């Protein structure tokens, strides 16, 4: 009702939702990458986001502008991701999906508890002090940090596509994703490719986390919703489809925000999951329609 009477509110909701979605998309890039290349569904995705957030919070405490934390968190998390691959993940790459789910689930609990011990369970924030943009007489408000996040998500998405298409490492990653065995035969060090892939994923999540700490808030148990939304975005977009990831991420953010407004906040997450089911059913139905049987 009110949405039709005051279209400007709809604009506000959709814009804020798009900005929210961009942050999800960042984490989802990483998940798409790891899932596509290594066939691992990384349950610890949200925990990487959380760790990146703590990098930003620490820099904020140290008096450094938290926007700088976006690249720093990416770098730190790349190293963390690399180290985790060398310690844990390499053991599960070629194993059953169930094993990798369990292992990354274990990692997520470990990271949560470590951060809880180090930083306590309190809610933390990093304040970038960027202020807010007002449109239409202040009826539409966009916090600038979210706009920064949005632009960054688009740019990073573009960079990922170019990186995978053009660079040697990107080509090696794609080759490994297509057929790891053949890639090994062709002289690609797949172990290194996996380590870089996992590190890249952690780096993407890290920069996402720094943005979350600046735009929203973080605490050690914030991870799960980010894991779930990444999963949902990747499922909707399809593996290896980076343009799809950003579109799905933005769409999800906008839809979620509108649903929160219309149905009330209590149904906001329920709506996300409902949407996931609808998308999966619809997909299956489309596929079934196209399916051809050989006789």
């Amino acid at each position, binding site marked *: 009702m*009110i949405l039709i009477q*005051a279209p400007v*509110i709809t604009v*506000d*909701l959709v814009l*804020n939702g798009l900005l*929210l979605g961009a942050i999800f998309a960042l984490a989802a890039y990483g998940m798409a990458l790891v899932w596509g290349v290594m066939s691992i569904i990384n349950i610890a995705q949200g925990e990487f986001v959380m760790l990146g957030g703590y990098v930003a919070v620490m820099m904020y405490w140290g008096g450094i502008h938290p926007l700088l934390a976006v690249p720093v968190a990416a770098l730190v998390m790349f190293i963390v991701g690399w180290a985790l691959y060398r310690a844990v993940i390499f053991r599960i790459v070629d194993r059953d999906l169930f094993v990798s789910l369990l292992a990354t689930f274990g990692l997520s609990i470990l990271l949560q*508890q470590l951060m*809880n*011990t180090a930083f*306590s*369970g*309190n*809610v933390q*924030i990093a*304040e970038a002090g960027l202020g*807010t943009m*007002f449109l239409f007489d*202040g*009826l539409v*408000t966009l*916090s600038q940090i979210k706009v920064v996040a949005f632009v960054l998500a688009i740019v990073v998405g573009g960079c990922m596509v170019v990186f995978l298409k053009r660079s040697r490492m990107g080509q090696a990653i794609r080759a490994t994703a297509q057929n790891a065995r053949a890639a090994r035969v062709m002289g690609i060090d797949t172990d290194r490719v996996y380590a870089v892939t996992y590190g890249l994923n952690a780096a993407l999540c890290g920069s996402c986390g720094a943005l*979350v700490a600046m735009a*929203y*808030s*973080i*605490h050690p*148990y*914030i991870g*799960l*919703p980010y894991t779930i939304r990444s999963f949902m975005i990747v499922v909707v977009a399809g593996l290896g489809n980076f343009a799809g990831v950003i579109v799905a991420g933005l769409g999800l953010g906008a839809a979620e*925000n*509108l*649903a*929160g*407004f219309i149905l*009330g*906040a*209590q149904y*906001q*997450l*329920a709506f996300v999951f409902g949407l996931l089911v609808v998308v999966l059913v619809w997909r299956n139905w489309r596929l079934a329609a196209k399916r051809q049987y050989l006789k």
Partner: protein
Amino acid sequence: MRITRTLVLAAAGAVAFGGAALAEDTVTLGSAISLTGNYSTNGEHTQRGYDLAVEKINEAGGVKIGDKTYQIEVKYYDDESTPARGAELVERLVKQDGIELILGPYGSGLTKAVAPVTEELQVPMVEANGASRSLFTNGWKYIFATLSTSEQYLASAIDLAAENAEALGKKPDEIKVAVVVENDPFSADVRAGVVEDMEKYGMKLVIDDQFPRELNDMSATLTKIKALKPDVLIVSGHSKGATTAIRQLSEQKVSVPVVAMTHCDSADIIGNFGAASEYTLCATQWAPSLAYKDDLFGSAADYAKTFEAKYGYAPPYQAAESSAAVQVFADALERAGTTDKTAVRDALAATDMETFYGKIKFDETGKNIAKPMALYQVLDGEFKIVAPSAVAETKAVIPRPAMN
């Protein structure tokens, strides 16, 4: 089945007896508390509150039970912030360790898991951090709470709005209220208390949103607030709710004349947001500036000094109410003249004392009915008590001036 159970109990009793004989002049209280997991920060505040009171009481010579003085000691277990674990550990405290005087865990959820155990084993529990009113509607006889229950948290904000209705340019029954709470038992109680109080004045509930625990974004709700322009905004969602609300209210430039919330101090809204937190009303169980005092700690301000000297930060109310719980136990033990659990329970029920934390007197359900909730307002970067009026430091600024 029954025989084995009796045997186990007898064995546990024997162990307990042996243990008691060794440490002759100490009384041991037991507590399963969240030292790790989700509630570890507040669990630590709780533990420090207990420890500080124990230390003070022992320094002052201990507790006189009958004609003998005892030192107090607390045995802790870590419940890992998990209700099932908490219940299990309290059972272990009683059955294996033979401790029959229990101090409560942190939080309503855990207290609710533990209370049925203490009830079944008929051991008294004094708790300081379970505020949910559902703890006091089951006819439980062995639970005693030093704090005010959660439906009282923000009800006083509604009273305050009604008192200042004229300043808001309305009659009390024209005031529009938006309630935004997290989807958990505590916040549901807060909401119930607010709604009950609103009905008293005939105020209108225009927004009634419950956001899930996982959500750290309330921009959709705030857009709704911007459209419907309520006079009062009530937020309850622990530290995350307070942090999110303050940050997004200023980001989206939503101006509501009266904003009241819980957990402002644990979210450190002043330190984190400075000017954006100005004029926010905050519910608190206790504050160092309140005019309560006792013989052990002195005034509330003295307690704050003692606590800060030992732990290096100002005591949150979670610590204060925990210290008070130990004082309640010590008082009841002295009056009972024995450590027998039934006698102590009866002495607890008859408690009527004054502490630095406020007056403590339990009704038949075990909740403290002598101490009101207090309300702070952030004024010039400081928390000032504005309600209840009997102990207020200054008058509340209502409506809050528009943000620039």
